[in-house]
């Protein structure tokens, strides 16, 4: 009987090809939209997770902020402060050492880095960035850096501030022909009007974590970064330098949230108790990650809701066509009833027809949605493979839609009075 109904449904669909296709189109578009959006949403969230998650979840960023300012993320809002920030309000190297001494057993290190903007040599431009060991390690992990020629920085480079430099593969090839040729070369470049000379000791290659990250960070520079040891280029002696933020990095297995609070409390007690305006406050990458996730989740939810509405409209289209088709086939329904079809037989027949429209529509929609997800994913550089979950969800949904939107018309058909149906013109 089920098989008969399925066969019957297919022959009905074939008999009204154009109508069937148009009806399915609504479901196709709805399902494709849901799948593509779920796929891209997941891809975006995952790529964000990867970028923030891996190395950086252990990072604690501690900022100098106004005491009255609740929102840490608004770091640039010093203009509204009671008074302008002074160097003495900021963190200094002494505090770094204090933190290291006090929390050393829980810390991997302190991330130190400074960006100097572009360093130019002829028509080649790179971002110049100085890093300490901990800072470089984080760069390595987050950008997936691997040294393809020469060496990385060693202890001497860091402690003595050696005039050595790591450059990217593309720059090496452009400037020296190949990565190997670059090794040992002297690179002379200009930063903000100053000429600096470094010996290239290594060439690295990065596998960036995709465009999603650069979208989120507001489009990171497309130039490669040239790394130098932190101490090798200081604008003033280290002791006199001040920092608006510091980044302690927790060891694995340490409770980052607690450590972050402890460090802040420690700093505030010791250094900021008497400060009239500023204090230390912090946010872990975990916090940021949560925020980013809640934002991507929200975006995903809104988009999915819009897609779901298109699916709903498609479902209503199915219902509409079923109602029309049942009205057209009133006599046929009367005949079937006269021949002994029970109400359940009739209901089953039309329900299966509706479900089959939805299933075929969703099958095409899944293909289209997967293709769309993969295509857009490839363009913006995130993983666009549709998850089994999203496919399963949409198949279930379309079945449910078929049932839901098919039930009313099918029930209407089942309840037809056979005498009136037979007489229907």
């Amino acid at each position: 009987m089920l098989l008969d109904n399925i066969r019957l449904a297919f022959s009905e669909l074939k008999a009204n090809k154009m109508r069937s296709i148009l009806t399915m189109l609504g479901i196709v578009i709805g399902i494709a939209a849901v799948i593509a959006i779920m796929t891209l949403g997941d891809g975006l969230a995952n790529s964000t997770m990867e970028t923030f998650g891996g190395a950086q979840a252990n990072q604690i960023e501690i900022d100098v902020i106004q005491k009255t300012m609740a929102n840490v993320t608004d770091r640039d809002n010093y203009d509204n402060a009671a008074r302008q920030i002074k160097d003495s309000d900021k963190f200094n190297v002494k505090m770094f050492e204090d933190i290291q001494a006090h929390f050393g057993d829980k810390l991997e290190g302190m991330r130190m880095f400074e960006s100097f903007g572009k360093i130019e040599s002829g028509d080649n431009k790179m971002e110049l960035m100085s890093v300490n060991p901990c800072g470089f390690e984080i760069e390595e992990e987050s950008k997936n850096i691997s040294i393809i020629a020469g060496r990385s920085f060693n202890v001497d480079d860091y402690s003595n501030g050696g005039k050595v430099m790591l450059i990217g593969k593309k720059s090496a090839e452009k400037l020296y022909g190949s990565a190997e040729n670059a090794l040992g070369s002297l690179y002379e470049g200009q930063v903000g009007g100053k000429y600096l000379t470094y010996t290239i000791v290594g060439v690295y290659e990065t596998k960036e974590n995709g465009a999603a990250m650069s979208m989120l960070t507001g489009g990171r520079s497309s130039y490669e970064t040239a790394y130098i040891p932190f101490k090798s280029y200081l604008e003033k002696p280290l002791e006199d330098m001040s920092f608006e933020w510091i980044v302690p990095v927790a060891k694995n297995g340490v409770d980052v949230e607690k450590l972050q609070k402890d460090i802040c409390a420690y700093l505030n007690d010791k250094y900021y108790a008497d400060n009239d305006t500023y204090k230390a406050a912090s946010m872990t990458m975990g916090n940021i990650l949560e925020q980013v996730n809640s934002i991507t989740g929200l975006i995903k939810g809104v988009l999915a809701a819009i897609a779901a509405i298109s699916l709903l409209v498609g479902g209503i289209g199915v219902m509409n066509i079923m109602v029309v088709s049942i009205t057209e086939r009133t006599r046929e329904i009367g005949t079937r009833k006269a021949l002994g079809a029970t109400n359940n037989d009739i209901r089953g027949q039309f329900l299966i027809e509706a479900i089959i429209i939805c299933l075929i529509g969703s099958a095409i929609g899944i293909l289209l949605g997967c293709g769309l997800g993969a295509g857009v994913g490839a363009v913006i550089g995130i993983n666009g493979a549709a998850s089994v979950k999203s496919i399963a969800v949409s198949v279930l949904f379309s079945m449910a839609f078929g049932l839901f939107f098919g039930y009313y018309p099918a029930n209407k058909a089942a309840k037809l009075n056979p005498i009136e149906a037979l007489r229907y013109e």
Partner: protein
Amino acid sequence: MNSDVVIDLKNIYKRFYEGEPNELEILHGIDLKVHKGEFVSIVGASGSGKSTLMNIIGALDRPSDGSYILNGTDICAAGDNELSHIRNKQIGFVFQTYNLIPRNSALKNVELPMMYARTAGLSRKKRAKELLELVGMGERMTHTPDELSGGQKQRVAIARALANDPSIILADEPTGALDSHTGRMIMDLFHKLHEEEGITIVLITHSNELAEETERVLTLMDGNIISERRGNNYVTGQYKTRIQ
């Protein structure tokens, strides 16, 4: 009650809009017995209650009052599902307008009542083929109704009516939409089924000419059976005589 009584209607009333001011009584206490193997016709002008009576005999509708035993089953007490099963097994409908399912082949149409009886696919097909051959449609089994003439459609409809070996064939103006020649052929087919297969047939018609060919003629007027007699032109073996 004779065991060979197939249809047993006693004091059947049918009222519409019951209890409302526009209540309408169509049948006023019909008594009717049809025996196994009979060929009975019910004649009457339009408005005489023919269709209402046919709907009751065909188990499409329940009487407002009275009792109807069809082949031992009390129709008045049956629920909707039961009525469906009774129609499926006991009654073979033949309609004036054929009522074949469009886009389905003749074979599929004949299989339909067996599908609702949950007969297995293979035996269904076999039986449908036999029936189509019986009504002389063996050559056109794969044709859809669109590709058949009126007479051919009616033959398919008759084959379909026979599918589940019903107790009666209930034919409502089966020749009404056909020209006289084709109508003649359909009547011959009924005589053949009656004589050779012993099938019980109830023919509902407004045509006295056709009614006179049947074993027993019941005349319906204003909701009452006003006469019951043997058909004037009824001849035993008339199908055979005619085709010789």
